[in-house]
């Protein structure tokens, strides 16, 4: 406070130095001494200063509301441009498997299917791993000087550009994983999910890479949730003779469940909207395949791979599919926001 206080005095004096005289409209300058008149009036000053104050307030308010407006505008613009396709194809767009730029007939069911299936694979892998790692890094299983750099490194995974991950996927990950797919296919091929000829560019490959990308989100939010739980809970459970893992599984995770669910929803939204790895790894095949080892397509891979050379109607259809993605991610994100808010309110 002392340091802060002295800084303030210097700053404000400096400011007064630049504009040494207050607005004096309401002051009785002349009847009193100059120094007296400077501190004379307590009336509200309709001066440059108060105008500046008011103006600044309104400027920031407009900008703040502008953020909400940008969100609304993004939704509106995509909807407006997709309108011709919505009018032409209606809700049938969501259930049709045809994507024919020659006849100009479009339906996005395979892409919607691919989006949901690859995101589901990613969650299936990332949720147990993410929650497990969050627990491992919250509890003192390893000393802090190891935990801190590990957490830091995990945060950096989010920073890897997805196009770099896609490049790595094509040239490193797919050659690496192929033998494992062969084994999976020959042992579990009787399950429809792993049937057929295993392919490198496939729903499963995209699902795994998406899992790599979303696992840090689940870790960081789950970890934050676990850290914010009151220490009395842990003490209470330990004092009841619960082991550390019983405390985690029976008390801490249930108590932080809404935060964990929120993190999973956010990760789900991120997986659905991820574009570059999808366009580079899923194989861009317009079909619905039960087997995860076959190529497929997602809404994002469809838009990324076709938009450049699309004709007028095709562009509208692509924007329509974008609108579908927008609705899906908005629902998931709003749901996640509400769950996390609810958790914070309970706190």
């Amino acid at each position, binding site marked *: 406070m002392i340091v802060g206080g002295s800084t303030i005095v210097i700053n404000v004096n400096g400011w007064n130095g630049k504009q040494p005289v207050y607005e004096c409209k309401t002051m009785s300058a002349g009847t009193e001494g100059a120094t007296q008149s400077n501190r004379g009036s307590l009336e509200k000053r309709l001066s440059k200063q108060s105008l500046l104050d008011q103006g600044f307030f309104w400027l920031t308010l407009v900008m703040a509301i502008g953020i909400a407006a940008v969100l609304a505008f993004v939704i509106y613009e995509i909807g407006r441009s997709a309108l011709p396709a919505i009018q032409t194809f209606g809700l049938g767009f969501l259930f049709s498997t045809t994507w024919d730029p020659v006849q100009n007939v479009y339906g996005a069911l395979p892409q919607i299917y691919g989006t949901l299936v690859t995101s589901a694979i990613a969650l299936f892998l990332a949720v147990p791993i993410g929650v497990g790692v969050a627990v491992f890094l919250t509890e003192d299983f390893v000393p802090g000087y190891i935990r801190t750099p590990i957490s830091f490194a995990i945060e950096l995974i989010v920073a890897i550009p997805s196009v770099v991950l896609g490049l790595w996927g094509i040239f490193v990950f797919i050659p690496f994983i192929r033998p494992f797919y062969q084994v999976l296919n020959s042992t579990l091929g009787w399950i429809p999910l792993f049937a057929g000829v295993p392919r490198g560019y496939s729903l499963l490959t995209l699902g795994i890479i998406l899992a790599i990308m979303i696992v840090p989100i689940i870790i960081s939010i789950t970890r934050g949730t676990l850290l914010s739980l009151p220490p009395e809970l842990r003490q209470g459970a330990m004092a009841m*003779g619960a082991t550390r893992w019983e405390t985690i599984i*029976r008390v801490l995770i249930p108590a932080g469940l809404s935060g964990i669910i929120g993190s999973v929803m956010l990760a789900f939204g991120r997986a659905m909207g991820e574009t570059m790895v999808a366009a580079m790894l899923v194989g861009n095949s317009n079909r619905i395949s039960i087997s995860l080892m076959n190529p497929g397509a997602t809404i994002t891979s469809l838009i990324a791979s076709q938009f450049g050379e699309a004709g007028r109607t095709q562009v509208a259809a692509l924007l329509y599919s974008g609108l579908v993605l927008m609705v899906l991610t908005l629902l998931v994100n709003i749901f996640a926001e509400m769950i996390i808010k609810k958790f914070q309110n309970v706190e």
Partner: protein
Amino acid sequence: MTYSTITSSTDTLLQVNNVSVYYGSVLALRDVFLDIPKQQVTAFIGPSGCGKSTLLRCFNRMNDLIPGARVEGKISYRGKDLYDSDVDAVEVRRRVGMVFQKPNPFPKSIYDNVAFGARIGNSKENLDELVERSLRSAALWDEVKDKLKASGLSLSGGQQQRLCIARAIAMQPEVILMDEPCSALDPISTLRIEDLMHKLKQQYTIVIVTHNMQQASRVSDMTAFFNAEAAEGGNRFGYLVEYDKTGAIFNSPQQQATQDYVSGRFG
């Protein structure tokens, strides 16, 4: 300085033998000798920082959860050194239950709170009976019997604390440690819990830490007075001044410091 053993050794459940506790390199409690008798209420009193809670937390090894905490000397429970290398802290805590200063029910239903100990202990007992019996022992049954599925957090502070006592009783421990159990409660809830302690000591050995001297004189059979002293370096450490029957501590203490404290002259 001398320490007297008041209880006959046949009744002793917990023996504290020359115990010192350190947090890292900082001494928190020094050279305590103490025998805690079976099925009685023993109170620890003294000013803040005198180490009374620290000692309490040695009895169920809750100090293990604090990084750097170290216990020297010997604490025996039924003749077994609690800090022996082969002793499992989890097993200790199943026999030595604890009630905390701030009520800390789990964010689960009232029923699940009470059943928690039996569930993690893989008890084969009938849970409904156990829950009812424990809630009755904690004098809470009549207030909650119609809403066992409600969250434990929906109860008032005093009810929450009795729920925590019921939760501890349901483990069927031999000892119940209470760390200032009434300091967050209103006077009426406090009286209820004090009444409860009188009933519970027929079955359980109770050790209570309290700031409140009236409470100690009302509920306890034995009282230990701890004091704090500044060590070189400015840290304060606690030590046991006097341990005796509660009546003796409050009416005819042997030490001047005890006299000063119980008569309210300091602390």
